[in-house]
């Protein structure tokens, strides 16, 4: 890569933006999964059943 080439700022901006968006997406998905798992563990520790007992439950 020629670091003296024109428009290099646009190239770095495109790669930087891609990195930020994709890293953000990865971190959000992993954080969401962890938060859900922790909340499920709390409910299971409380002895909450996995399904509603009443008929026609969603």
């Amino acid at each position, binding site marked *: 890569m020629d670091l003296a*080439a024109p428009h*290099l700022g646009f*190239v770095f901006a495109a*790669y930087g933006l891609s990195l930020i968006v994709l890293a953000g997406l990865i971190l959000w998905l992993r954080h969401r999964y962890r938060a859900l798992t922790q909340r*499920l563990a709390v*409910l299971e520790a409380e002895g909450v059943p996995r399904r*509603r007992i009443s008929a026609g439950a*969603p």
Partner: protein
Amino acid sequence: MQQFANPRRFLRLVALVEPWAWSLTAILFAVGLYMSLIVAPQDYQQGETVRIMFVHVPAAWMSLLAYVDMAVASAIAIIFRHPLADLAAKAAAPIGACFTFLALATGSLWGKPMWGTWWVWDARLTSMFVLFLLYLGYIAVWHAIDDPARAARIAAIVALVGAINLPIVKFSVDWWNTLHQPASVFRMGGPTLHPAILTPLLVMGTAYLALFVTLHLTAIRAEIMARRLRQMELARADAV
């Protein structure tokens, strides 16, 4: 496919596959970025700006693939009532929206130095913008309706109706006179790109594909957990 209808079996499979999928994605990105930023030559017309293509084009491919995935999963959810299909469609939406945003934004960053403008309302750019709005609309439907079964049905219809935009995106450069260049990789007669540019592009495309598959598996797993959590919270509310 029916054997993966059981969420518990699917979760076991994902737990097994996920570490390998992340490793493969990381290796593909390392090779792809090395080829894109170091190995690939300057273009005789675009200069160094051609390197934006190595992140722009794969993002555009994945934005379409994610929507195809969402539409097929929605059709399976409506027709076969597969218990994971609506969750698979829901999980694909934010990933597809991010790829579409990246395709639009990196395309804009390429357009300014090459076309002299950040944006034009030509058929390809406009149909890609519509695709982005479809993703946002689909996500909004899931958030707007409390009953998950009803939300899934309406969201699936939105996804299937929106699928009409996919051929418009793909063939917009052929059907209308656009500033956006016509297809140069997936076209009748084969790619028109020089192998020195085509090879890093295909490696980056494979890296983006691996990332999409891995993220989708992670997102489906989270959706299964969210559904289980909702059922448990309802069960606790019933017990009170």
